[in-house]
């Protein structure tokens, strides 16, 4: 029994020493990883500054024409910072992105529509601007404002419209095609173009209910909170998009 007790004490002592060493090792590794992440943050911030100043050759020439239609998804709380939204739109205009859809779930941006259009000066509403002129010919910025009601609710309204158009009465009842639904969405005012690129500003990495019908092949990039928006990050995201080659499943 004495021997057993002694052995147990020895094993316990060894275990405690071992735990202390593991704890020390854990702290050292934690410190190394923390320093690593800190260094990565500093590097990103530095890179953004260089991009903003136009010092990085790679980002000097930006084929922004490839972004024919860009969507901004903004967290509704952050969307209340209208000045930040306007700053973002001004950056996009400076980069050469002319057609933008602004989306937030609660419709905060829709309510700030007038203020945003006034502050931007040369901006027009998408619906008015595209009546007779194709997207690429515009000299001014076109803005579309969307909210959750333009997503799932709009599809429900479109379904109702399709039923009313084709299933009431005695006319031939077709099998609905994608063109039927797209046309119905346009008829109810929710038929904007499919964005090429969708930038998400907020705390969650999801598109927050952006109209589902329109994002089949849209590139989705999470940009972080709107308050941390950086011109350099914007350029980087657009540059990365211009390098993408989609094969659309083929």
């Amino acid at each position, binding site marked *: 029994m004495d021997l057993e007790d002694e052995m147990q004490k020895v094993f*316990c002592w060894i275990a405690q020493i071992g735990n202390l060493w593991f704890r020390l090792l854990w702290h050292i590794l*934690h410190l190394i*990883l923390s320093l690593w992440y800190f260094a990565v943050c500093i590097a990103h911030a530095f890179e953004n500054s260089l991009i903003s100043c136009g010092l990085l050759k790679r980002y000097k020439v930006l084929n922004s024409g490839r972004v024919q239609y860009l969507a901004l998804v903004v967290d509704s709380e952050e969307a209340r910072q209208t000045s930040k939204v306007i700053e973002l739109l001004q950056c996009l205009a400076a980069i050469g992105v002319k057609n933008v859809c602004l989306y937030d779930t609660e419709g905060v941006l829709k309510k700030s529509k007038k203020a945003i259009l006034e502050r931007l000066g040369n901006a027009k509403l998408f619906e008015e601007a595209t009546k007779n002129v194709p997207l690429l010919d515009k000299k001014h910025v076109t803005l579309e404002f969307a909210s959750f009601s333009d997503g*799932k609710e709009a*599809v429900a309204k479109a379904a109702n419209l399709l039923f009313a158009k084709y*299933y009431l009465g005695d006319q031939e009842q077709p099998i609905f095609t994608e063109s039927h639904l797209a046309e119905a969405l346009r008829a109810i005012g929710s038929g904007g173009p499919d964005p090429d690129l969708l930038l998400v500003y907020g705390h969650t990495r999801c598109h927050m209910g952006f109209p589902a019908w329109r994002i089949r092949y849209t590139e989705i990039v999470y940009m972080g909170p709107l308050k941390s928006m950086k011109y350099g990050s914007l350029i980087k995201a657009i540059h990365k998009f211009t390098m*993408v080659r989609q094969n659309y499943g083929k």
Partner: protein
Amino acid sequence: KTLVVMLSLQFSLLPITKTKTCTLSPNFKPLLHVQNLHCFRASPHLYRPLCATAQNVIVEENDVVNGTVADGGAPAQDVLLLPAGLRRELMPKHVAVIMDGNRRWARMRELPVWSGYEAGIRALRVLVELCCRWGIRVLTVFAFSSDNWFRPKVEVDFLMSLFEKGTKDELDNFLREDIQISIIGDSSKLPESLQELITNAEEATKHNSRLQLIVAVSYSGHYDILQACQSIALKVKDGLIEPEEINELLIEQELETNCTEIPYPDLLIRTSGELRVSNFLLWQLAYTELFFAQSHWPDFGEAEFLEALRSFQQRQRRYGSRDS
């Protein structure tokens, strides 16, 4: 980057919590109780074996009483075997995966395209096992898009034969592991033999409840929404519902994901670094966390899945509402 991820997983950056490692060796059980030893979540092993053994089960400290789990009295080895750094209450219930990059994986290794697809099947097996082990209820995988029909015929035919072989080979495993299989997509375009096999597999596994594996084959998110609208129009025409009742909820009920009780994925993973959803579950992804992994699908294993889950657990999900 892989080393950093593995180290950050194994040596959690969260504050250290002390846990008890339940070793079930009868020689040291009394010692564990008397000495109240503390071990940390850090494991000296960089990889956990796929089959967790009793020796490396780690449970939360306050869940363990006398070597058994306090909330049910089940033995320690029967509790959810979550790796260190994952919190049970934050695990996603429904994970969706776009299994992209099989062909690129093969080309990088100068292998034929078929090798990439076969490697992809192996990766899927691993993921299914992990989901079973970690308590994920639904796993939806994008196996074949409606756009993929435009690929070379020989490739499409190979894929169809792979689906057929895979379903036949795995059916016994699904029955044994209590996995329900469901197929969504336009099955009318699939070979008849595969259609029949799918129907039989769905029927045979319909009462299984451990994991629901939904395989999207010949699937299009656009078509899913469209057929829901079509279905509703027919129901209104037949007097089953009123036109005024057409709303989002009704459309949701008609989507192909109505085969599951949890139709909305909590987490979507797409491999190969592509940043889009490519016509997959368009309606269902409104508030789904999106995780874009750099690795190609055949290389997506336990470490990569852990990274995605950890990233998911660190995010703040509000489903469009404000913080309370």
